[in-house]
């Protein structure tokens, strides 16, 4: 690896795209640089489940050819990206982090993948994740854990931990993740990145292997707000293949990210997302971020969302209920793992043996929870009640957004915890998503923005910014303005300030 190409991995997506457009570097060179970086460090980080070197280089050369022919290319053409292994990519192994899908090569592209390809974005490979996106540490991957590039003994968060670690470790300038209860924002916070859960319905779910259909949403990881916006703009927009996709223009996220101005914006601090369980270092950085917003000209007020306290239990009924149905199809009949088919066993025995062998403990736990919650006689008490709570939480948001433009909170109660620390304590693990779940239940947009490192452990802290449905641009406006102020303080994005690997 030459110094010149090694430097390519340090560029932001925006910088790299400019260099590509100017002809200073080819997509093939940029791709090779990132593939080399992966080859050098990923045995320690464990961000990837599958590196598609051949496919990535072919895609890069195609972009270079098109550029040479003078074709009009998208703003991210030739920029490499890491994709969470929960989105289908034609011909490329897709596992959702589960043994039950080991070896499956989808015959079709997810809409997000199709849009990345159409935009000339080079997909380096598929990133590690908690099995079927169920978890907050990526330790529920059936394959291997992923390590936080800030401290390899710590988790990168989850479930999109592989995507976060890949960007934090400079294996890719961009990544796509999915967020059902915080699975983009929480790992972004733990890895010092920008991560966005777009408005539900803003990005197509077609080809996203479903965990919880009414909550799942794909979104960007990046080291800067502008990069996240550029990726957001590529993958978002109406898709007739997803009935829940919103038929409305994509909010002007890139322009908002570049505005660097929050004067006159009204910011609400959510009273309920603080206090018990939140580390003091996290709260300190959060308070500083709120103060900074005030100094930048925003009006900051405290708002109350009284039902947010019920969000976590409601989520742990709705998401498992939907997953118990969504994951039924993994029955050994058509694809993936098949166990116990000895020519004698009946179909139900084979289904049962396959699911027993193919699903991990957390997935089974949630299938069982959800099956119970939907059972006749319990439906009203569990699923029905949880849906009512969901309505109340949406009303809290609606009332708050009458007073303010965005809401803020810490993204997570704590910084990255140690690998193994919470694996035997599911409830402790669930608490990692305490602050992120309400936005999923509501369907609005939310971002995690790096707001410094905790004085206690030197690990990144995330600021969560939330906005109403279809007002994703507000996240980028607030995030972009704050980031500009931080870059002045820190001398660069937080992601560039981590320890070298």
């Amino acid at each position, binding site marked *: 690896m030459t110094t010149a190409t090694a430097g390519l991995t340090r560029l932001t997506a925006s910088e790299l795209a400019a260099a590509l457009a100017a002809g200073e570097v080819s997509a093939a060179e940029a791709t090779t640089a990132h593939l080399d970086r992966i080859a050098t460090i990923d045995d320690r980080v464990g961000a990837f489940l599958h590196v598609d070197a051949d496919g990535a280089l072919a895609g890069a050369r195609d972009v270079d050819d098109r550029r040479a022919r003078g074709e009009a290319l998208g703003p991210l053409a030739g920029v490499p990206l890491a994709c969470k292994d929960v*989105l*289908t990519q034609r011909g490329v192994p*897709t596992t*959702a982090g589960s043994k039950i*899908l080991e070896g*499956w090569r*989808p*015959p*079709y592209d*997810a809409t997000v993948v199709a849009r990345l390809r159409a935009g000339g974005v080079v997909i380096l490979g598929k990133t590690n994740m908690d099995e079927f996106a169920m978890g907050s540490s990526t330790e529920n991957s059936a394959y291997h854990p992923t390590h936080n590039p800030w401290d390899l003994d710590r988790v990168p968060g989850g479930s999109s931990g592989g995507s976060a670690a890949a960007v934090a470790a400079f294996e890719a300038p961009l990544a796509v993740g999915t967020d059902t209860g915080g699975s983009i924002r929480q790992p972004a916070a733990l890895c010092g990145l920008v991560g966005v859960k777009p408005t539900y319905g803003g990005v197509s*779910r*077609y*080809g*996203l*292997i*479903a965990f*919880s*259909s*009414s909550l799942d949403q794909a979104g960007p990881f990046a080291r800067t707000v502008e990069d996240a916006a550029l990726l957001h703009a590529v993958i978002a927009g109406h898709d*007739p*293949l*997803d*009935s*829940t996709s919103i038929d409305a223009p994509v909010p002007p996220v890139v322009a908002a990210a570049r505005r660097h101005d929050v004067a006159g914006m009204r910011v609400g601090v959510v009273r309920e997302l603080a206090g018990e369980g939140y580390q003091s270092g996290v709260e300190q950085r959060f308070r500083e971020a709120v103060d900074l917003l005030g100094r930048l000209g925003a009006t900051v007020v405290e708002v109350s969302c009284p039902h947010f306290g019920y969000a976590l239990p409601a989520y742990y009924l709705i998401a498992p*209920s*939907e997953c*118990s*149905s969504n994951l*039924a*199809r*993994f*029955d050994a*009949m*058509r*694809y993936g793992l098949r166990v116990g088919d000895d020519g004698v066993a009946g*179909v*139900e025995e084979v*289904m049962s043996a396959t699911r027993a062998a193919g699903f991990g403990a957390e997935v089974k736990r949630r299938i069982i929870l959800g*099956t119970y919650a*939907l*059972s*006749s006689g319990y*439906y009203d008490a569990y*699923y029905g009640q949880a849906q009512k709570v969901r309505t109340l939480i949406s009303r809290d948001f609606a009332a708050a957004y009458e007073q303010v433009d965005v809401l803020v909170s810490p993204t997570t109660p704590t910084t990255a915890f140690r690998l193994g620390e919470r694996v035997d304590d599911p409830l402790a693990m669930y608490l990692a998503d305490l602050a992120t779940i309400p936005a999923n239940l509501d369907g609005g947009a939310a971002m995690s923005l790096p707001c410094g490192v905790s004085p206690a452990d030197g690990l990144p802290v995330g600021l969560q910014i939330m906005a109403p449905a279809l007002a994703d641009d507000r996240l980028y406006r607030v995030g972009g303005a704050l980031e500009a102020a931080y870059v002045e303080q820190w001398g660069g994005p937080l992601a560039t300030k981590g320890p070298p690997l």
Partner: protein
Amino acid sequence: MTFADAMARYAPVLGLETHVELGTASKMFCGCSTKFGAPPNTHVCPTCLGLPGSLPVTNETAIRFTVMIGLALQCEIAPWCRFARKNYFYPDMPKDFQISQYDEPLCTDGHLDVVVAGEAFRVEIERVHLEEDTGKTLHVGGATGRIHGATHSLVDYNRAGIPLVEIVTKPVAGTGAAAPEVARAYVTELRELLRTLGVSDVRMEQGSLRCDVNTSLMPVGATAYGTRTETKNVNSLRSVERAVRSEIERQAGLLDAGRRIVQETRHWHEDSGTTSAGRSKEQAEDYRYFPEPDLVPLAPTREWVEQLRAGLPELPAARRRRLADELGASAAELAAMGNAGVLGLVADTAAAGAPAAEARNFWLGYLLQKANEAGLDDPAELAITPAQVARVIVLVAAGILTATLARQVIDGVLAGEGDPDDVVATRGLQAVSDTDELGAAVDAAIDGQPAVAAKVRAGKVAAAGALVGAVMKATNGQANAAVVRQLILERLDGGG
């Protein structure tokens, strides 16, 4: 236990669940073709195979068709409703849940009137809802094609995801001994209605219309319904009637013996005319229904529904009333045509230029016989059009065909030999009206039956029929009977 014995002691209560595959070009939630008979697993895509990540998109034509069915059955149309997931594991169901409707059906509370032996029965409709069909499982290696004894099974997902409308009646009580006929008349009328709406090809033998019949008995005079059984695979109109009759006899026998009816699914066997026990429904399976999160709610606007209502074609009952007037048919003739399913065919034949009475005779006579011989539930499935039948009738009236020749022409059309005129030409079926040609045969008939000839000569003209018959026989039915009669009377008129 005979049926009459059963009816003396018990009152039957029926319930009919009819599944109708809609005749949309594409499936319920994806763009795959619905065409019947394609090689296995060729009409499939990620969505109807339930591949990970795939999502459903609702077929708007299927929604329209379902609302049309609801309107034709006088149902209320829900202003807002959702699909639900019905969860259960089965290999022919790609997602291991079926997208269906549960407590929010698209159409509710309608009715369909039927007439049996001159008596009208109103069948109340509980609901009409939309769902997706499953794939088909083929059990290989066993003797019966059933799962027992099979070495392995194959699944064809071509059918998976085809839009399926389920029409459920409320309990049908008060029919007494007419229950089997009421069941048949209901399915017949429903099929006619669906065909008129153009929403399905309603072919029972291909499974595009499938019927499950719930049957229970209670002692005559009782009001509390008995335990019901659900008979599946009832795939012809005749079978609907037979299955109800058989199940009534079976249940009455058990009740008389002091035994209880087990709530269960029963399979209908066409060959033996009996049912056998299937899955017990004593422990109801928990389908864990919940609203389908991958689809947005359906919200048919009042305006759109009224537009559809205004655009409905003339429905069978109204059509029958109009045709009765137009065809000048008596109530009995009308009932005969209705029961045989030929009313529309007769009307179309008359409209194509045949006298109504002749059209009725052809369809209720030879053509119905051909349909029965071919095992067709529906004479409309015969490979002859009303226009072709009308042409045959016109040829008979013109003396070009005899009744016997007309049948041969129909046979030829059914055999795919072309239009009636083609068959007449290629088979050489013109009636013989040439007096010179017929003279010898007439003479032979008179010579052969001198006693009959003498009677005719003595003025008993009616006796000439025997001589005409002899000539027809001698000419293999090709002689024009009117011309033959004329020749006979001329020869025997005072001449001897």
